[in-house]
């Protein structure tokens, strides 16, 4: 019979491409025996031989691993190191469910200067600016700001460029340019908060930045309020977000249910609320954070909060016990809507 091309191609694609392999330490399975063409009893069938996993399948398996495992498995062999460090591999990550471990985890070797709010990397390889992906010329980036993290990627600003950085592969991708010609960026604004979140509906990452305007000519521009800008990393469009609030903490909160949270304050009302700025229209998702404002997490502690399981999150009825970590102490508090 004639088999169609896709069948033959499928056969070829399963050919062993994974290079050297240790000879198996067990004997080959016993020869098969003829049997009638009915689904045979599984226990009567000979043991399967352990097969080689071709690279494309290996990629599918490894992309399901947490970052920590991947970092260790770079030591398995050189082909694995190459695979895990491949730029294509980081693309898989963007769709995976991998959380950055803050504080004691992945960013363990980050040096956080709380005064300047700048982060410099010690120990971990920091992002390098490449002329192009795969290019050989590398320029070190000693000073940069981490604007947020989501799904295992960091949003990093260096000079006027924005990068997405995958710490597990050390791949860096330029995603945005600071829109200097845009009138929204004319004024001397102060970046008071930023974050990165992922929108599964449009399958893209969004960078969110909140700014405050300093005094100008004796009066405050835009009152006491800030302004927020969201940028879609796929379409590279910048959008204003309705944001009549002042950020209570400069650091972005956790990304839960694809929403980036912040603690904000209304000028006529001292109550701190958490706002979702993940989408174009910031819809309010929860309030009543007043009691925990004393424990407002620093950037580092915020990373711990991202341990929150998405299942624990309910938009309307927040009665889960939340855990804030402050130093080595753990504060538990119940939040009611």
């Amino acid at each position, binding site marked *: *019979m*004639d*088999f*169609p091309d*896709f*069948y033959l191609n*499928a*056969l070829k694609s*399963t050919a062993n491409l994974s290079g*050297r*392999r*240790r000879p*198996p330490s067990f004997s080959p*399975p016993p020869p*098969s025996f*003829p*049997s009638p*063409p*009915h*689904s*045979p009893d*599984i226990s009567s*069938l*000979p*043991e*399967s*031989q*352990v*097969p*080689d*996993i*071709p690279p*494309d*399948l*290996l990629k*599918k*398996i*490894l992309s*399901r*691993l947490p*970052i*920590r*495992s991947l*970092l*260790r*498995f*770079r*030591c*398995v*062999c*050189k*082909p*694995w*190191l190459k695979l895990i460090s491949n730029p294509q591999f980081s693309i898989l990550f963007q769709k995976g469910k991998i959380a950055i471990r803050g504080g004691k*985890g*992945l960013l363990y*070797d980050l040096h956080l200067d709380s005064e300047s709010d700048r982060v410099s990397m010690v*120990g*971990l*390889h920091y992002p390098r600016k490449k002329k192009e992906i795969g290019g050989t010329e590398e320029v070190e980036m000693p000073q940069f700001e981490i604007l947020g993290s989501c799904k295992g990627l960091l949003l990093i600003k260096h000079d006027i460029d924005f990068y997405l950085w995958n710490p597990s592969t050390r791949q860096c991708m330029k995603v945005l340019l600071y829109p200097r010609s845009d009138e929204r960026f004319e004024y001397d604004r102060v970046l008071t908060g930023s974050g990165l979140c992922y929108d599964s509906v449009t399958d893209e990452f969004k960078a969110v930045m909140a700014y405050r305007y300093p005094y100008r000519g004796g009066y405050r521009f835009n009152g006491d309020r800030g302004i927020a800008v969201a940028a879609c990393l796929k379409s590279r469009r910048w959008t204003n977000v309705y944001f009549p609030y002042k950020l209570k903490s400069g650091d972005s909160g956790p990304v839960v249910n694809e929403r980036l949270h912040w603690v904000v304050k209304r000028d006529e009302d001292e109550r701190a609320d958490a706002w979702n700025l993940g989408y174009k229209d910031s819809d309010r998702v929860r309030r009543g954070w007043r009691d925990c404002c004393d424990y407002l997490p620093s950037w580092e502690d915020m990373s711990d909060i991202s341990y929150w399981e998405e299942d624990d999150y309910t938009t309307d009825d927040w009665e889960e016990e939340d855990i804030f970590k402050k130093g080595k102490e753990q504060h538990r508090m119940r939040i009611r809507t």
Partner: protein
Amino acid sequence: MASSIENNNEKLTLKSSDGEEFLVEKHVALQSTLLQNMLDSDCSSADVIPLPKIDARTLALVLGYCKKHADASSSKQGELNSFDSEFLKDMDMGALFNLVLAANFMEIKGLLDIAAQKIADTIKDKPHQEVREIFHVENDYTPEEEAAVREENRWAFEGFP
């Protein structure tokens, strides 16, 4: 398009790498995109379809999965999920590898996903030396090279040999 697809009672024969033949109902075979495409094209259903990369034991497992999912496609997802986890529960690595390869070859996405996830879950907390054994990979690092790669990510190895 082969008219025979409309008849759910028709069967086709699949032949494993070790010569075992399996008689499969068509609606079960349709779980595999590869087989579906073959049935849609001009391959006569009377022929035996050889699957030279898949041994009999693995093919039996794959077809067990397909049958459950074909028969239960309209029923509740929860039931299928518990079947899936039970299906993979006590499977050893060799069987899982074969399943992943077979699912990839036969283009059965659901099976590929759960088997790949199961492998990932099994190895994620294992030391890399053990992962080498599991994947039968030769260590091509010199001790110095391996130490250097390890040093780059020292924290990841805390608590590991």
